[in-house]
């Protein structure tokens, strides 16, 4: 029997050695990355270059060097064709003044090339979809922060894009609204067949909505891959609580090549290499007269992946 042929899907976004410079500052440094179809998280601390990458792909900023392709089209030569198939939910608030939600979303649909009647119909549908059905005749200026996030998603969706750029989609939302927004994003990616790039500095948001992740740091790609694979790549992780001098214990562990990270509580997360085990931990503890009060194997989180990628202490 012949094994099924596995073909890498065509990336929806492809950057080749892209550098974007603001004055003397490099916002993107020689970035080469491919975003496969589906939902991909773009992670990174503030200032990592996530928004700059999205803005470069939209054609808002021109790269100093490099080439970019979106949906198989060159950004430099076909920006309008690309934007007709693309939806962008910006990070900051943005709306057309003096318009209610229906007028605004209809207008955005028309700007994206939909006939007025179709744009109007889709505006109503999309506003219901994002949870603004009841408030659709209200002026956008009167909306709460959470509602403004939803209207930004609605305007990005109205023309039915093949690819959506969501820049910090849960910014400023309360926990309930955030959960609803993440549900919407997940639904778009899994049931509606829309490709997504979710730019966020909130790891749980990305973990809840995406299968793959690209981590950026200081304008460069720190790591990338499927979230499951990246987590697997991590060494063994243990949660430990001790009684004794934490600093001495930490130094002793690091001398043994065991990485330590403290958490919000009094629990330490220890990252062991493949040839190490709990016996080594107890050995170090015994040598320094430290009691191990709690030891539990733990699963690597996206936070671990992220911290390792950006070299965070």
């Amino acid at each position: 029997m012949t094994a099924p042929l596995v073909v890498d899907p065509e990336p929806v976004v492809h950057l080749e050695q892209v550098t974007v410079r603001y004055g003397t500052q490099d916002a993107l440094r020689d970035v080469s990355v491919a975003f496969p179809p589906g939902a991909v998280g773009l992670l990174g601390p503030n200032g990592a270059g996530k928004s700059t990458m999205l803005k470069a792909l939209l054609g808002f900023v021109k790269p100093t060097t490099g080439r970019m392709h979106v949906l198989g089209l060159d950004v430099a030569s076909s920006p309008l064709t690309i934007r007709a198939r693309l939806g962008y939910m910006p990070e900051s608030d943005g709306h057309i003044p003096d318009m209610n939600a229906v007028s605004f979303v209809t207008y955005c649909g028309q700007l994206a090339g939909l006939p007025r009647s179709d744009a109007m119909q889709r505006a109503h549908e999309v506003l219901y979809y994002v949870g603004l059905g009841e408030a659709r005749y209200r002026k956008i200026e009167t909306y709460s922060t959470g509602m403004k996030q939803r209207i930004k998603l609605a305007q990005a969706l109205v023309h039915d894009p093949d690819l959506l750029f969501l820049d910090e989609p849960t910014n400023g939302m309360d926990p309930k609204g955030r959960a609803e927004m993440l549900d919407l994003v997940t639904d778009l990616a899994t049931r509606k067949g829309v490709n997504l790039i979710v730019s966020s500095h909130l790891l749980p948001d990305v973990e809840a909505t995406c299968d793959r992740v690209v981590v950026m740091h200081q304008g460069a790609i720190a790591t990338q891959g499927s979230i499951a694979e990246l987590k697997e790549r991590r060494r063994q992780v243990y949660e430990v609580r001790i009684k004794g001098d934490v600093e001495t214990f930490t130094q002793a562990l690091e001398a043994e090549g065991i990485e330590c990270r403290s958490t919000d509580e009094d629990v330490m997360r220890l990252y062991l290499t493949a040839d190490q085990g709990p016996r080594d931990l107890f050995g170090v503890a015994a040598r320094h007269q430290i009691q191990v009060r709690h030891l539990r194997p733990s699963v690597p989180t996206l936070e671990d992946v992220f911290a390792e990628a950006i070299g965070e202490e």
Partner: protein
Amino acid sequence: MPIHDQSYRRYTGVREAPGTAWLVITVTGIRTALSKKLFLGVMLFAWAQFLVRAVIFYLSANFPNLDILAPSVETFRQFLEMQELFVLIVTVYVGSGLIANDRRSNALQIYLSKPLSRAEYVAGKLGILLFFLLMVTLLPAMALLFVQMMFSGSLTFVRENLFLIPAITLYALVEVLLASFTMLALSSLSTSARFTAILYFGAIVFTGALFTILRGITSSTALAWLSFRANLEQIGDVIFRLQPRFDSSWLLSVLVVAALIGLSIVVLERRVRGVEVVT
């Protein structure tokens, strides 16, 4: 929490090819402006002079002893000159917020994330101003010419002054393009429509006052090119084949107007962007 409504579905209808979005901006802008009663009142009032002149044309055509009121080339020149007040009002009312309001509410990134270029965005906004300004200049002036023809029952006046048709068109276009481009450029420099309006009004008043003062000091009108309004008057006189009213060269006025429009285009090119980069 469940999703509110699962009715989102893929769109299978037709899409316009990129390149027509400017028309959407213009039409929506016109509709929005006309929905304001105060503005509608201003637009109607702008046609008051047309009505008065139409009555005068009727009287001169039907009562021979009133032929002193008969229209001449100067009549049309004066008509357009008097409409300048409405050009100013409409430019300030409609134009001051056209880009400033979009910048205030971060709408530029929304616009430019759609399939439209920066030039199309500016063309759309320009279309709104041009429409209303031509409604208070070119349209009533042409309508007046038509009314003259109808009331007099002959083509004699029009035939003898056939140049009036291109003259009215050209002058109205120069006036309207200058007002539109400069206002849009000022609007792109600020996030406040009110500030833009004050800036535009101030520029007209200041340049006019400067010219008047220098005229008093030098006892000459050679510096007319310094005034926004005087340049238009000078060009208007030449277009309507009248004696230019100022000592300065009308070519210099043409250059000043062209430079102002060119400068406005440069400002718009720099200010209308999806992202503001501060370096």
